[in-house]
């Protein structure tokens, strides 16, 4: 607990990391309290043709969409989908990538080489391209988007964990623990994992931003959860035919994506500075 508190305090001193934390906190609040914060909570499923495409004003803070639904309220419920996609996709990538990286890093031989070659193949192709192929094959739905993103993101974790584990094996404390007869399980769980946690956490934060951006692109292309789901990417696609008049309709969800992704990117950068001084020296000057 004290370690987490230490990290939080250091993050709070870094202005941009603090901004990232605040943005993420706002996103989580919006998702959790969506039914309370929404001015028109039923508008996710209800139609009000008489009120369609109203400009932002007193009753509808961010205007209404083509169905007459409140853009602000749908945005709040969209935050739930965004968090759901990000957390499950990154979580699943962690569950696949970390063990693969640990096994490939710990053991030497053809099996390790094979594991890393397989993850290299996934890294050799832009994520959007593979995710499109998978989501297209499986059909547009929320679970399929999450699956497509998980299948294409785990190699990033495998690569980071592999490199860190191989690096640690040269350390004297790991070598001596192994020499004392510690089992691979004990060595990994008690000595390797705690020492490579920092780069994994940093990668996870940046991965959240990246995954949310890709998910929005899939939604925009029509491969996301089907309507009336208030997914942000799909909402932007729907809004296009009402431009330039209904500018609020396209602007609001795009800003929401922007602020969310920026939050995770800023937090990732801040975490890297706090958790891993070595990386900090490599990317910025010491006195920066």
């Amino acid at each position, binding site marked *: 607990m004290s370690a987490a508190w230490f990290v939080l305090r250091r993050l709070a001193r870094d202005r*941009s990391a603090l901004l990232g934390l605040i943005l993420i906190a706002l996103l989580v609040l919006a998702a959790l309290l969506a039914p309370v914060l929404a001015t028109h909570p039923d508008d996710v499923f209800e139609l009000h043709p008489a009120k369609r495409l109203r400009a932002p004003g007193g009753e509808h803070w961010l205007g209404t969409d083509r169905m007459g639904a409140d853009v602000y309220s749908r945005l709040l419920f969209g935050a739930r989908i965004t968090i759901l996609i990000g957390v499950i996709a990154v979580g699943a990538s962690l569950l696949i990538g970390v063990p693969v990286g640990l096994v490939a890093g710990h053991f030497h031989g053809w099996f390790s080489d094979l594991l890393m070659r397989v993850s290299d193949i996934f890294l*050799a*192709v832009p994520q959007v391209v593979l995710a499109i192929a998978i989501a297209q094959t499986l059909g547009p739905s929320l679970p399929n988007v999450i699956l497509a993103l998980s299948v294409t993101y785990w190699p990033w974790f495998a690569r980071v964990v592999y490199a860190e584990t191989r690096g640690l094996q040269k350390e004297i404390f790991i070598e001596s623990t192994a020499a004392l007869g510690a089992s691979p399980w004990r060595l990994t769980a008690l000595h390797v994992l705690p020492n490579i946690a920092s780069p994994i956490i940093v990668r996870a934060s940046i991965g959240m931003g990246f995954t949310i951006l890709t998910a*929005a692109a899939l939604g*925009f*292309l029509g491969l996301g959860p089907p309507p009336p789901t208030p997914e942000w990417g799909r909402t*932007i696609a729907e809004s296009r035919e009402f431009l330039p008049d209904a500018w609020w309709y396209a602007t609001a969800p795009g800003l929401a994506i922007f602020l969310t*992704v920026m939050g995770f990117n800023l937090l990732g950068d801040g975490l890297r500075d706090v958790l891993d001084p070595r990386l900090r020296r490599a990317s910025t*000057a010491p006195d920066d």
Partner: protein
Amino acid sequence: MRLLALALHRLVWFVPTVLGLLVVTFVISRVIPADPVALVAGETATPAQVEALRRELGYDRPLPVQFADYVARLVRGDMGTSLFTRRPIVEDLAHRLPATIELTVVAMVVSVLVGIPLGVLSALWRNSLLDHALRVVTVSGLAIASFWLGIMLQLLFAMRLGWTPLNGRLQGFPPQSITGFYVVDAALTADWATLATALTHLALPAATLAVPALATLVRFTRAGVLDVMQSNFVLYERAMGLPRPLIVWKYMLRSALTSTVTQIGLLFGILLAGAVVTEAVFDWPGIGTYAVSSILRSDYNAVMGFTVWAGTIFIVVNLLVDIAHTLVDPRERA
């Protein structure tokens, strides 16, 4: 000779990587779906039609045989037929390739020409107003969804201000085809009016595509230059009294750019992935638009063809970048 050996060494990895990509696309297209033939046949096909198609496509054979056949066809350049245009997918892709290359190259050139100098200045004037402003720009550039940026640019410059066309690649007839790139063809045939409309059509999509690449380049160039500034050889050159511009723009940049060259490879991935959505937003008649309309039409063969094509191009570019990296950095050749 050493360079040749190195290139060959990288080539050895090229074949298994591409083969691995084919395994992945094969699994996605043939193994994951419950019945891939029904997907190809469409929703209106009768069971008898599906069975006939299954035999015709050879999908009734064992999977390893199917995979061998799949690879053999691809090697011969046969990606199958589009279910919508009824033409070979390779032809469709080749037909649209110049538009995508034109867009990608312009975006790449813009981001390199703007991004690298800005990155150097940002490092030289660390913590200045320019440095802080650029930090905001790069952080934003990496967080913005490119399809939304494109739509916002359309809203402002095409719909409100009317400075640029909304979408498409050209107004009127294309120039006489020499290279397939409208800008180059128009310039070669001295068709200035066409050149002007080609350029105004390029402006918004190229800007949209360049933004994330530009942000990445500024970041890495800045980090690279800051790193080199601390190094012993720069200290030595300064002690020798070499003029500052010479140190900065020749020796420091050369050293800092080795990591940037590797970045350009990754950049190409960003551009290629970005092109899919950017082209869709601007109705740019390239392979990205082809991929997106194939998705919408459930033209399943074409989507797979696009995936194989894009993946292979990306792997080839990374191979070339690896080789270029050794050319730029004298240390790698030792």
